[in-house]
């Protein structure tokens, strides 16, 4: 790879390499306040390379690569370089991680106690995490929470926050002075814009927290709440984990311990103000 950038997000070190300078420059700029990998050694290598040799110059198209591959990944326009890098980093972590149980969840922390929020795409994980970050919570991550099977603690993974469609405007209105990546239109996920986590999220990225409450948010419904029994939380979280099977009995132990110790609630919400109040109340009651 001609161009490369090294960075650490929470406990995970990445080396991002590319045939082109532009995506690396964009990634390096947005991640400029993040530390380098511990001991200088990256856990994962991410490659953004030309789909065909001539596609470095002719209608440049990015193919994602690394230690783990998706055979049907579609090449992306060069202008989506940041998105390509983010997707490639997620993919390497999702398929390769063996130290932590990976939960597809956003998380925020206060007083050392974390709220984990998981749900289908569009449930509002990223939006809620971003808004809570603007209201005094420490953002731990908008995509993955890393559960340590040994300690039961959750580790942060505060990558760039991926805002989609309506949530781009909602969060821009809440934090107009924050740093945002370029607005990417017409991606497979719609319009997309990355938000750089605030200084506190980056400075505290290495600090784990104790899970306090599990939330299953659903956007677009009248405000409602119900407790989720541990067995249902377990099944939902196995579906929300990319490496549960790979971790074997360690994953089973980690997840059963989590659902036995931590209360879980499903929250339906019609707007983000309602959801923020629901999250605050659930955290306080846990």
């Amino acid at each position, binding site marked *: 790879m001609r161009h490369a950038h090294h960075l650490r997000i929470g406990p995970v070190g990445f080396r991002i390499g590319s045939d082109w300078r532009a995506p690396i420059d964009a990634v390096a700029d947005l991640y400029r306040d993040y530390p380098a990998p511990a001991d200088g050694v990256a856990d994962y290598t991410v490659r953004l390379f030309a789909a065909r040799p001539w596609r470095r110059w002719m209608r440049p198209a990015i193919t994602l690569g690394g230690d783990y591959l998706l055979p049907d990944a579609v090449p992306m326009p060069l202008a989506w370089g940041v998105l390509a890098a983010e997707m490639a980093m997620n993919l390497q972590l999702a398929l390769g991680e063996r130290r932590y149980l990976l939960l597809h969840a956003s998380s925020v922390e206060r007083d050392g106690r974390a709220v984990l929020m998981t749900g289908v795409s569009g449930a509002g994980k990223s939006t809620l995490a971003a808004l809570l970050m603007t209201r005094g919570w420490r953002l731990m991550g908008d995509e993955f929470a890393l559960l340590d099977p040994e300690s039961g603690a959750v580790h942060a993974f505060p990558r760039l926050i991926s805002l989609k469609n309506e949530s781009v405007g909602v969060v821009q209105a809440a934090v107009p002075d924050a740093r945002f990546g370029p607005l990417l239109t017409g991606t497979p996920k719609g319009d997309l814009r990355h938000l750089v986590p605030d200084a506190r999220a980056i400075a505290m990225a290495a600090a784990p927290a104790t899970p306090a409450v599990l939330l299953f948010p659903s956007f677009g419904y009248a405000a409602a709440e119900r407790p989720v*029994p*541990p*067995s249902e939380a*377990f*099944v939902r979280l*196995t579906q929300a984990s990319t490496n549960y*099977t790979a971790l*074997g*009995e360690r994953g*089973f*132990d980690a997840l*059963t311990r989590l*659902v*036995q110790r931590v209360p879980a609630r499903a929250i339906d919400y019609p707007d983000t103000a309602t959801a923020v109040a629901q999250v605050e109340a659930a955290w306080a009651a846990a």
Partner: protein
Amino acid sequence: MTRYVAAPAASLRLVPLDALTLAYHRPSGITHVLASPAPELLAALAAPADLATLLARLQTDYDLADADPAALAERLAELETAGLVLRA
């Protein structure tokens, strides 16, 4: 008469949660989510038993009045497929 026995205790991690029981099957690495009567059948098959003996055990332990041997045989077949019950 076919005799059945639960998979060895060392091969299973059972975690009862509210209405369901989670079972991690070590030989296959598969997690099973068990609803009643599966956990009760595993407990009753700690020692080998044929269908009639198992039915008698369940009637004693769980006050079963209307036990259905055909349904029990079906549940046993499911557990056997999952590797949680073996032929003794």
